[in-house]
């Protein structure tokens, strides 16, 4: 036991969790903690808005698989984190949010919290529905155990954000601190081992299947189950579709890959999923954007659903064989069981059908298009980037073009806001990913609308020397909503025109970053190459048509097999 302040105990507790970096913005209610950063091994990265800090922590977590940490002061600092925390919650990303709070004991009163003090916000109340769990510290002695518990909850089971609210008096309180206390959580025991009987039933069903399809969700990436997924797919000769969040779980250039399903899914994935007789869904919550109209979602198939969150089983889609378990463990056991059951690899009429469908619905591009169109740009970008490069996206058309045309090859290399659909996520997430993986190129595929929502983080990337590449597919409109107005509201364009401001080249330069504008695919290729060699943040402005649609598309309310438009 050592005597120290709560502030020091907090930083030391974080160091004991191997935290290397915190994205944050200080404020009055955090001053005692910030006073200790100089003596800590932890790097503090000063962001320019708390939302950026939360997204950066999220990007760091998704790229590294470790918890990302963000910090904000009481009141507005804390409420500015809310979008970032919700985003992490929806996509099961482990972030730890630390917030300052007004003192729980005050100068004039015995209790300051709850008396509407300056910069007081009820962040516990606000974040209860958007965190996996949250804590408000009452005394400094609880700090080591609370931090340990927070990291355990955030990173185990189905990961998610955990918030710790720290009143200022707890930061300054000097007391005996004990770091070795173990955690006690009688209400939290994630079930990671699959039930053997369920594995047996699933193996029997899959062994008999004539048209099996595997659907891999974000859970496959989180649990690191990609090798097991590949083994199982190759053993069964089952094609693999991913959800949008599952992009990267299975190499999209593999002969068995169908790409991602959903509203803007790959047509071959949507089509074959609906032809399956057995669907093996792993680590997915069957979101509405993935499934389309539920009663036509691969209706004829028998379904096996592996998920670590029991509440996801039967929530949206009824399944015959539920398996509550960690995806990696479940797929490993399923593969072992199948390997014994199947004497040789399956190869059948189904394999032929998969090949044909891919050739018909997803033909390889006939040479590079010269037009400055998203498809050509993203296919070129794939060629320019190494396999392990990390791509983040903003939200909207840029994101769906990336889903359709940018092949993800490895897990944790495609990072995007899936559940919440947060415009402005991609750029700070790219900064976080670059901090986690400084030796790999990180590219944010952006739209002009989304990029503007967190562009101030250019200051962070330049001053903290975190070079990333931002590709702005600039159509001067809020493209996705403009597309919906075009398609479903008889072209009554309302509040979508952004104009040609700002000049993104000048904007980049104003922040000390590099800015380029390109007018052709060839120029784009040249500029990306230049940016990859540079160690300065680069913004590449690519003017594209404001009439460009993301197609194919499943119109809202339709089944995923009712996709319109050509790939």
């Amino acid at each position: 036991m050592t005597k120290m302040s709560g502030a020091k105990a907090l930083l030391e507790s974080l160091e004991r969790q191997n935290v290397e970096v915190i994205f944050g913005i200080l404020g009055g209610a955090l001053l005692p903690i910030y006073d200790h950063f100089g003596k800590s091994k932890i790097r503090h990265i000063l962001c320019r808005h708390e939302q950026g800090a939360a997204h950066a922590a999220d990007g760091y977590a998704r790229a590294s698989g470790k918890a990302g940490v963000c910090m904000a002061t009481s009141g507005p600092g804390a409420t500015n984190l809310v979008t970032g925390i919700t985003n992490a919650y929806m996509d099961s990303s482990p972030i730890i949010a630390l917030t300052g709070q007004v003192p729980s004991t005050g100068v004039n009163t015995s209790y300051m919290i709850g008396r509407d003090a300056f910069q007081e916000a009820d962040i516990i109340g606000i974040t209860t529905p958007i965190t996996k769990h949250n804590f408000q510290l009452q005394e400094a002695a609880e700090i080591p155990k609370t931090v340990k518990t927070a990291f355990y909850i955030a990173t185990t089971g189905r990961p998610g954000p955990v918030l710790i609210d720290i009143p200022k008096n707890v930061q300054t309180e000097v007391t005996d601190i004990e770091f070795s206390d173990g955690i006690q959580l009688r209400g939290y025991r994630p079930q990671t081992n699959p039930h053997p009987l369920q594995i047996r039933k699933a193996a029997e069903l899959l062994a008999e299947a004539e048209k099996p399809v595997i659907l891999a969700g974000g859970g496959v990436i989180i649990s690191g189950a990609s090798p097991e997924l590949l083994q199982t797919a190759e053993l069964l000769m089952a094609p693999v579709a991913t959800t949008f969040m599952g992009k990267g779980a299975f190499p999209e250039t593999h002969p068995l890959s169908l790409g991602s399903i959903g509203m803007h899914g790959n047509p071959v994935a949507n089509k074959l999923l609906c032809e399956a007789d057995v669907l093996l869904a792993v680590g997915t919550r069957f979101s509405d954007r993935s499934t389309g109209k539920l009663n036509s979602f691969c209706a004829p198939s028998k379904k096996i659903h592996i998920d670590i969150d029991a509440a996801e089983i039967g929530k949206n889609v009824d399944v015959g064989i539920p398996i509550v378990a960690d995806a990696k463990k479940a797929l490993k056991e399923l593969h072992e069981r199948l390997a014994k059951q199947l004497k040789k690899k399956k190869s059948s009429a189904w394999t032929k059908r998969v090949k044909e469908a891919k050739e018909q619905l997803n033909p390889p591009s006939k040479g590079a298009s010269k037009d400055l169109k998203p498809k050509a740009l993203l296919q070129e970008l794939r060629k320019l980037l190494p396999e392990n490069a990390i791509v983040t996206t903003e939200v909207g058309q840029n994101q769906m073009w990336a889903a359709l045309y940018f092949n993800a090859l490895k897990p944790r290399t495609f990072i995007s806001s899936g559940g919440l659909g947060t415009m402005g996520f991609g750029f700070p997430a790219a900064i976080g990913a670059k901090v986690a993986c400084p030796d790999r190129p990180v590219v944010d595929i952006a739209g002009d609308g989304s990029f503007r929502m967190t562009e101030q983080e250019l200051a962070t990337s330049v001053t903290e020397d975190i070079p990333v590449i931002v590709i702005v597919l600039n159509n001067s409109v809020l493209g996705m909503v403009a597309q919906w107005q075009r398609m479903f509201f008889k072209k009554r364009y309302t509040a979508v025109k952004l104009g040609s401001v700002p000049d993104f080249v000048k904007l980049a330069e104003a922040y000390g970053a590099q800015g380029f504008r390109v007018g052709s695919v060839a120029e784009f290729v040249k500029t990306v190459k230049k940016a990859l060699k540079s160690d300065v943040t680069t913004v590449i402005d690519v003017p594209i048509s404001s009439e460009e649609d993301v197609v194919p598309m499943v119109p809202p309310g339709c089944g995923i097999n009712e996709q319109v438009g050509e790939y």
Partner: protein
Amino acid sequence: MENGKTKVIAALVENKPGVLHSIANMFRRRGFNIESITVGHTEQKGLARMTITVNGDEKTLEQIIKQMNKLIDVVKVSGLEPENIVTRELALIKVNVPDTKTRSDIINCVEVFRGRVVDVSSETLTIEITGTPDKIDAFLNLMKTYGIMELARTGITALSRGIKSIRIEE
């Protein structure tokens, strides 16, 4: 249990500030409706027991239980089998008593329902009655004819019959 029937959920939860908030929040956020909720200490230190009644089909009940289970401070949760539980609710009812004839009529009813008169004034009687919600409903129907001035019901609390329990080993 068919559609729309009242179901009873029992939960052991950490006896900490904010637990009721997080449970109530989950119900609100996911569109589940709480009919009644009772909370009290248990014989085990640090644990409170909640009895929640909800209205919905079997699938809704399953989702509620699963979503409650996800909350870190919920230690154990279980749907109680309606045919195999003892349920009780307590109600306090203040009734108008205009004359002595009415007074003795009401006291007769109270005796039939095995209730108790807990307060008397010149114009009112306050009655305590315990039982299943059905029994209380029946008594209240009877009292309506006399005029109910005020009513407080606790909502039900329940235990499984026999050896079955949701107790956790410490």
